[in-house]
């Protein structure tokens, strides 16, 4: 694409010397950023680099401590989200901000409902039509009347996107919009982005996925530790350079899984059934093995994990741990049997966001840090410090509330919790969702080390490269069934996609 | 200047407001200042004790006290006595000789008088019921038992089929209607205070039940109901008199006068016929 043309187009938005501090954290230090009409400007950086914070300032969610924002060359005060929207700036937040009790359509048009009858009655019909239209444009199958609270994370994210699109903004910020989406949905989103570009909409695109940047971005701005590093043309810059700017160090290469589990079986699942979500799921897992679960959203991988973990009741099926049949009716039972589950929905099921890093890291193991009922505060602090160091969690201190950590750092805390509990069967559901390349590589290495130490690991991931990168063996799911198993060292993306789309009737 | 805290069993009900009026009248007459306080409900005995403590802290020249429990608050009263504060009990007494005197009416006797009039009105036979304003307070128990005992002793042909409790007029109204529903052959109902009496009158109006209603205490609604024949009549104690008695006695006490152990402020049966009488009208209040 011809950057030259755009280069001389004036910026719609320009941010200069932006400063922002939070209790204990200097999130942004004189950061600058600009966006031109009709460009996709990727904003990249490690977890906690300050990407979301910068964009929350641009969209009036936070107020900057210093610096100025120019819209169309005129300095603008963005005191509230409304003020930003009035100037045509809207955002898809990294965290989902939806009203669970309301339908998709009601969420999309909340506060802007089409009215009828003296403007006091809501025109539900029109609202549903308009919502349906947006979903069609995104090429997704979502019932506008369906309730958001009952949707999976992925679908909720799609609703958020639809909402942002409905504003017909000229500046659209997308903060990790694809973190929960599968390939097809991502493709459709990109199509939408392309046609927004064509209509002169400027798009800020935050992601940790390099391939996405290569595909859709015109320019890339890199941030590190709350500072502006550099802005480069996407096409002409090799991603390795970007990555180095981001993490400021060399990275492990993207090789394929080589290892293989031992012959000792630690987990066997037979004939697991749960409503429509799970049908006759059977598989086994060996000591030292990494079993990847691939599949499209809604395939039932999370449901499998939750079922094994006792988080949801199962209709039928048997679970054997170390050869013995075990009755797992609750997560407590699962943990007793050495099974740990790392949820895909960090905010709600992973963390106690109101509690400190220390307490979150240790909560699954509190029993161990107790003497005559009293908590061994010192010991708790020590292990917490240890894991914060090990996983390089970015936090001012271990007493920081996890709520205040960036997405990726929260994920690291959750992982720490289960590592500390050292169960020998670890189920990771989307372990690197919202985690930057730097941390990703570490976590991969971590999982491999754990396997090497003889842990049995299940990795559920919607990112095929990740599945291929890690798995010794790959189970592919579709519509609640396991449609096939592949050898992780030889499997190809194509093979996986075929199995992932192998519907019962089609097969 | 002389100051007497008067601590009642409540303050937001008509009866206590009438006592307050009497006390304030006497205070003005004797040139003393008073405060009139009480807990929210007659159940909050500990809160009344706190009020008592606060009152004692003010080092008053005398103290008027209507004990919610005849024994429970004696230790607190003892403190007042130790501080040399003369105590006058009112409305219902204390099982102790700490109070110099007690200005009260015998709730049991008063309720018994209600029973007699009610019995007379139904020819001393048939089914009757009662709606009582409080199941546990001294006043409630006194008036209930006074009524029931008298019926049991003196009127063998009268059967009490139901006793209900309701602490406000609205609940009393719905209660009485339920009673009439359960026992359509009820001939008379006794209500033990103004609130229940209002409820009784409302229920009788709403159901059009042709029964004899007997109330207690005073108040405009009840008086009107008696006037228009809904209620047969009611017992009134002399709350205004009680209030005056408390303050007057305290004044005498501070002046060092001897006081009788008990001052019966009396009670009266009133109905259409005698409501206008000067003596009765004097003790009635709106």
């Amino acid at each position, binding site marked *: 694409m011809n950057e030259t043309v755009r280069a001389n187009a004036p910026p719609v938005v320009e941010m200069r010397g932006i400063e922002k501090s939070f209790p204990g954290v200097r999130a942004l230090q004189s950061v600058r950023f600009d966006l031109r009409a009709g460009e996709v400007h990727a904003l990249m950086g490690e977890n906690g680099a300050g990407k979301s914070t910068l964009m929350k300032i641009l969209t009036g969610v936070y107020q900057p401590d210093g610096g100025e924002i120019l819209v169309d060359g005129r300095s603008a005060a963005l005191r509230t989200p*409304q003020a930003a929207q009035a100037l045509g700036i809207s955002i898809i937040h990294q965290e989902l901000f939806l009203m669970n009790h*309301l339908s998709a359509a009601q969420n999309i048009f909340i506060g802007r409902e089409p009215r009828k009858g003296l403007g006091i009655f809501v025109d539900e019909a029109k609202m549903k039509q308009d919502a349906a239209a947006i979903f069609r444009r995104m090429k997704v199958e979502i019932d506008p009347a369906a309730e958001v609270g009952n949707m999976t994370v992925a679908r909720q994210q799609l609703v958020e996107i639809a909402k942002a699109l409905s504003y017909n903004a000229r500046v659209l910020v997308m903060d990790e919009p694809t973190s929960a989406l599968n390939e097809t949905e991502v493709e459709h989103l990109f199509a939408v982005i392309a046609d927004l570009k064509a209509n002169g909409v400027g798009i800020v695109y935050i992601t940790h996925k390099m391939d996405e940047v290569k595909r859709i971005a015109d320019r890339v701005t890199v941030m590190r530790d709350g500072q502006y590093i550099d802005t480069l043309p996407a096409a002409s810059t090799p991603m390795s350079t970007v990555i180095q700017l981001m993490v400021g160090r060399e990275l492990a290469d993207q090789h394929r899984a080589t290892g293989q589990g031992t012959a000792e079986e630690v987990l066997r699942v037979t004939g697991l059934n749960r409503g429509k979500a799970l049908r006759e799921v059977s598989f086994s897992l060996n000591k030292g093995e990494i079993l990847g679960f691939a599949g499209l959203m809604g395939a039932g991988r999370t449901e499998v994990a939750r079922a094994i973990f006792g988080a949801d009741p199962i209709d039928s099926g048997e679970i054997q741990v170390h050869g013995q049949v075990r009755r797992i009716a609750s997560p407590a039972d699962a943990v007793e049997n050495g099974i740990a589950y790392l949820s895909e929905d960090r905010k709600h099921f992973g963390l106690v966001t109101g509690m400190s890093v220390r307490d979150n890291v240790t909560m699954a193991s509190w029993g161990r840090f107790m003497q005559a009922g009293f908590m061994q505060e010192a010991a708790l602090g020590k292990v917490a410090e240890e894991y914060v160091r090990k996983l390089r969690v970015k936090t001012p201190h271990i007493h920081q509330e996890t709520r205040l950590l960036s997405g990726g750092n929260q994920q690291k805390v959750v992982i720490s919790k289960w590592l500390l509990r050292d169960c020998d069967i670890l189920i990771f559901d989307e372990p690197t969702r919202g985690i930057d390349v730097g941390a990703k590589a570490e976590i991969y290495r971590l999982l491999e080390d754990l396997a090497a130490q003889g842990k049995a690991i299940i990795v559920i991931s919607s990112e095929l490269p990740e599945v291929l990168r890690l798995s010794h063996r790959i189970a592919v799911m579709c519509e609640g069934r396991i449609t096939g198993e592949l050898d992780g060292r030889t499997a190809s993306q194509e093979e996986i996609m075929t199995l992932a789309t192998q519907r019962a009737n089609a097969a | 200047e002389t100051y007497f805290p008067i601590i009642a069993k409540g303050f937001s009900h008509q009866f206590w407001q009438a006592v307050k009026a009497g006390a304030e009248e006497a205070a003005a007459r004797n040139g003393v200042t008073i405060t009139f306080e009480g807990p929210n409900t007659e159940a909050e005995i500990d809160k009344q004790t706190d009020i008592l403590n606060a009152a004692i802290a003010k080092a008053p020249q005398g103290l008027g006290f209507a004990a919610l429990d005849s024994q429970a608050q004696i230790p607190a009263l003892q403190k007042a006595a130790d501080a040399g504060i003369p105590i006058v009990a009112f409305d219902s007494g204390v099982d102790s000789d700490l109070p110099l005197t007690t200005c009260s009416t015998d709730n049991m006797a008063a309720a018994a008088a209600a029973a007699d009039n009610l019995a007379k009105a139904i020819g001393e036979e048939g089914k009757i019921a009662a709606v009582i304003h409080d199941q546990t307070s001294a006043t409630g128990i006194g008036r209930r038992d006074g009524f029931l005992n008298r019926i049991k002793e003196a009127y063998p042909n009268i059967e009490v089929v139901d006793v209900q409790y309701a602490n406000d007029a609205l609940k009393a109204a719905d209660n009485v209607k339920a009673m009439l*529903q359960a026992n359509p052959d009820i001939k008379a109902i006794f209500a033990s205070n103004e609130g229940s009496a209002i409820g009784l009158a409302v229920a009788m109006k709403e159901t059009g039940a042709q029964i004899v209603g007997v109330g207690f205490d005073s108040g405009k609604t009840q008086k009107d109901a008696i006037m228009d024949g809904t209620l047969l009549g009611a017992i009134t104690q002399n709350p205004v008199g009680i209030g005056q008695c408390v303050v007057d006695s305290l004044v005498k006490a501070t002046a060092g006068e001897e006081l009788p152990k008990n001052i019966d402020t009396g009670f009266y049966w009133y109905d259409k016929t005698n409501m206008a009488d000067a003596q009765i009208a004097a003790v009635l209040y709106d």
Partner: protein
Amino acid sequence: MTDTTLDSGKGAKSGFFTTAALQKAVAFVVLIALLAFFSLFAPNFATGSNMVGIMQATAVNGVLGVAVTYVIIAGGIDLSIGTMMTLTAVVAGIILTNLGMPLPLGIIGAIAAGAFMGAISGWTIAELKIPPFIATLGMMQIARGLALVFSEAKPIYFNDTPSYQLLSPVSSISAIFPGIEIPNGVMIMFIVAIISSIVLTRTIVGRMIFALGSNEEAARLSGIKVNRWKILTYAICGGISGIAGLIVSSRLNSAQPALGLGYELDAIAAVVIGGTSLSGGRGTVMGTIIGAFIMSVLTNGLRVMGVQEEWKIVVTGVIIIVAVFIDIFLRKKA
């Protein structure tokens, strides 16, 4: 919990959709069961006059329940409704009796007073960020105190305004349909309920109330003026409490300044029995009305059966829990 909240949302979508309907259905089943039980075991229970009596005993709690339903769906709570009712009744008394103004002014005055006080609660909650429980607990005391101050702790009678009787005991409908002796107080309850149901499920006000209760932060980020809607919600609640004040004082033909304490808990119980979630975002007005009926049928039935006062209290407590349990249980199954 999970299961309930999982279904729950649907209720929010509209008062007449699946779960909402089910909630009401459930409460309704409980109500029918109670009616059947008492008809069988309580002689003289199942008579027309007693049914009217039950309705009348429901009116006040029902209207208060509807009032607090708004607030609860919006994710709040209002403990002041009981004493607010008393205060508004006193206001009506002052306007009609002490100032001798015409009936309409009394009605408007009472409702306006309630709405105004409610708005104050709402303001302390929205602007001063006082937790609703504590803000309205304070308001409960303030309203109670003011009621006593204004009335000088004496009942105010409406003898000079005979037409005041129209607001509750009189049955205007029986004039049109002889035989249907439903008192106006009860009719007013039904009218308030129907209007409220429409407001909550079909109008922008209702949508905002559900949005607040479902996720206030999301609502704010969507550009909704959260505080204004919150204040409005409490104002509506106060205004409807005012209507309850009119009904009760009309029935007693007097404003009783000491009455009302504790009524808030009965109303909230009715709301929850009716399937409205105390965590906000879900609920129906009709459920509340059914909940209120469950409570008054229970009290009346036990009385007619002649159950001892103390046991009556125990049973009521048990039934409250059981009713809600059945509701939750059946919705899980559904």
